[in-house]
């Protein structure tokens, strides 16, 4: 009974499986769309109830970011940082490690990039690359600490990353307010980076004003593709996936689970470090207090929305940033505050992370089809 000929039922099942798979994809996509529409509808109602003009507000929010070229730049610049931070947590998430350490990693990356870009004179191309590399290394190191604590000592990664965040953010504040503060300046920030270290603004390339958007955008896209390849096309990515899916199985199969966990933290840390470099070399051109804002934690949301698939993280990051940018414009142009954007974002997150909904829908469709037959 090595090779039984395929029975009628088996070929029927094969056809059914393919149909089901296509249908599930369609359901997933339309559910995502429906989720966004539902969130917008809820925002609409909230604005109506609070006595605002929702049509005007939505017009500002949804068309605003594309209105003028510098607003597009504002959106892309924000999306670049946010997506990099989303990618940075998506990798540990794939190993089922709840890393909340993007904040410490992004600030470590920013510090390292600034240290090199401000103080170390380098030839033109190296002046861009060396700070980037330094930032990735610093971020990776900041990822390694909780990763090793989890993998080798069994420390809880949530606690470890949060504590490390607290420490690094304080150190960063101290350095920006003290040793690294630009002498003679009344505002709190570091000296500006050397001209050669700046990531080329996109305005220079396209000849239209695109604000502070820069070639970091392409760096981000390359990183996403590289991470996707890492996860799907390398033995290390396989080990990370299996560790996340069933660590007991991974161990049984001869995978060194602690190493896979450590690597997932280190890779994620390096990417968050790059986000820090992007802020320093591309956006602000210097260190500023709290330069990452709330982006580190919104990166987690982006990764969750994308179900930790690196390519989908890009889409989710662009979308999420668009809402952020649109919210700002809405606040400027109408009486509606950005709070409404937070409401919309929250509803989207709730609906998307409620994975049971699409599954329920798929089951219902399957049942209906079975009933028809």
């Amino acid at each position, binding site marked *: *009974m*090595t*090779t*039984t000929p395929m*029975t009628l*039922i*088996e070929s029927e*099942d*094969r056809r*059914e*499986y*393919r*149909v*089901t798979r296509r249908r599930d994809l369609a359901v997933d996509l339309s559910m995502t769309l429906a989720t966004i529409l539902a969130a917008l509808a809820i925002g609409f109602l909230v604005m109506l109830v609070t006595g605002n003009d929702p049509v005007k507000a939505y017009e500002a929010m949804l068309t605003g970011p594309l209105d003028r070229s510098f607003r597009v730049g504002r959106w892309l610049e924000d999306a670049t940082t946010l997506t990099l931070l989303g990618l940075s947590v998506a990798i540990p998430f794939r190993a089922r490690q709840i890393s909340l350490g993007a904040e410490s990693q992004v600030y470590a990356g920013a510090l390292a990039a600034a240290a090199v870009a401000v103080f170390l004179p380098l030839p033109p191309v190296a002046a861009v690359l060396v700070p980037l590399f330094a930032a990735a290394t610093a971020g990776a190191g900041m990822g390694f600490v909780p990763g090793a604590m989890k993998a080798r000592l069994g420390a809880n990664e949530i606690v470890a990353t949060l504590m490390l965040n607290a420490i690094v953010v304080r150190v960063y504040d101290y350095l920006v307010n003290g040793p690294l503060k630009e002498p003679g300046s009344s505002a709190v920030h570091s000296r500006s980076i050397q001209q050669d270290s700046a990531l080329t603004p996109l305005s220079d390339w396209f000849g239209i004003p695109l604000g502070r958007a820069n070639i970091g955008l392409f760096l981000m896209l390359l990183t996403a593709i590289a991470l996707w390849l890492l996860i*799907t*096309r*390398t*033995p290390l*990515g*396989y*080990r990370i*996936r*299996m560790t996340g*899916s*069933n660590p*007991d*199985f*991974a*161990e*049984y*199969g*001869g*995978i*060194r689970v602690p190493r896979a966990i450590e690597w997932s933290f280190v890779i994620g840390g390096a990417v968050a470090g790059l986000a820090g470099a992007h802020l320093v070399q591309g956006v602000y051109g210097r260190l500023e207090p709290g330069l990452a804002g709330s982006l580190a934690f919104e990166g987690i949301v982006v990764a969750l929305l994308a179900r930790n698939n690196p390519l989908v993280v890009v889409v989710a990051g662009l979308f999420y940033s668009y809402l952020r940018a649109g919210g700002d414009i809405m606040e400027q142009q109408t009486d509606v505050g950005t709070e409404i954007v937070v409401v919309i974002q929250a509803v989207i997150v709730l609906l998307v992370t409620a994975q049971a909904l699409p*599954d329920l829908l*798929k*089951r219902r469709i*399957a*049942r209906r*089809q*079975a*009933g028809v037959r």
Partner: protein
Amino acid sequence: MNESWADAGPAVAAHAVTKTYGNGVRAVRGVDLEVPSGEIRAVVGENGAGKSTLMKMFYGLEQPSSGEILIGGRPRVLRGPGSAIALGVGMVHQNLMLVPSFTVAQNVVLGVEPGQRGLVDSRAAVETTALLAEESGLAVDPKARVDEVSVGMRQRTEILKALHRRARVLILDEPTAVLTPQETEDLFAAVRRLRDGGMTVLFISHKLREVREISDKVSVMRAGSLVGTVATADATERSLAAMMVGRDLSLDVDRAPARPAEVTLRVRDLAYDAPTGQSLHGLGFDVAAGEIVGVAGIEGHGQSELAEVLAGLRRPTTGTVSVGGTDTAGLDVAGHRRAGIGYVPEDRLYNGAALDESIADNLVVDRHDRPPLARRGVLHPGAVRTHAERLIEEYAIRTPDPSVPVRALSGGNMQKVIVARELSAGPRLLIASQVTRGVDVGAMRFMYERLVAARDAGAAVLLISADLTELLALSDRLLVLKDGRLVGRFDDTAGLTEKRVGLYMLGVEHHDQEQLTAGLDDVEPDDVESDGVGPDGSGEASAV
């Protein structure tokens, strides 16, 4: 409870029931089944034949996509187990569902506790349980904590729980899988007694011998459909197996005498201090290339620990283990695999597979980092897929596609994925633990053939099983473990009976040290010769 049963008609019935799961799998296809009151009805079929799904529909765990379920002669809509229980349907699952920290009595009355005003009358609970146990012949100790009693007693507790809720239909899902032969006999006696009292019993099993022993009628399912129902008296194991797989199939294992070559696995003075579970003490044995050595024992007497120590998942405390000349005692899991050890773990759901990952990914866990799958740090998805397609074909894994997650496979198919992975690595030593647990007849036969084929190809096979029939059918030699110690060694399994091995498993008899260590290379050969005990198992056992 049970007030709405019609007087006439079957106790349980399905009319044109079809069940399609959300992922498109049609598990049950237009089944018509009627079971009258007071009958023991066996439902048999391969894994994935739909019998579990059908039972779940009777118990309200699943709802039919079309058709209707009848209980007590009337069509019912069961929204959950609660409504099934209210109608008098009880189910004992394969994985027992009790509160481990509660006593037997507390578990029996759970949900319908005696007592007033929210207080539980624990004396009444114990009395009720004792009375029920007395009436049904299901012996339990009402005051013992569930986590301290045997699996058999836990199962009896589950049945008593159903009786306490006045079940008139009892569904037993593979009840004997966890029992010793003696416990099985007791269970069957109790089930017959319940039947004589008017209980309808649905008995799901893979073991056709037991089905023939216990049931009145047998319903056979195949690929979601009901193939037929026959009176047990008219059926043979062979005819049932043929109905199940749709063609003639013998369950006997054809197996040429083993031709053992050089020693592959050499274990000496192996001890392992288990933090939880059973420790191992002073184990010493050999397994040669080209032989199957069985390990018998009541579950939990060190078999799992031995398998995991040998596979590298646990570190032995003392002693030496070598495989094909490589000392493996200090190596990690990957080192064990490099030394040529394949391992089919006893619990495939726990560590045998990553259930949410594809079949293709599950087949490469031990070889994902080397050619032909990976070259220069790049893993080729095409190669992984081709590799999977080859093994799916070679090991007759039933799946529409290699990208299907393992979770979607039936038990037998899932086990084929694991066996395909472990055997295709060409292991020098194969540790096969409970290789046919929860696997259908067709797949069982397939596993047997593959194990014998691996043996004949020169692998040393260590077969660990709770199924004595299987051990005796496949093993060239047999070891018996009790309390983490070797207590029996049979170098010739021909003519060995389950009863006799059972005596060693229970500790009634044991072999002495000379026989256990006969022929092992670091024992003085003179010792063995002077005692006149040959390594052929004919030596007399000393009674305790």
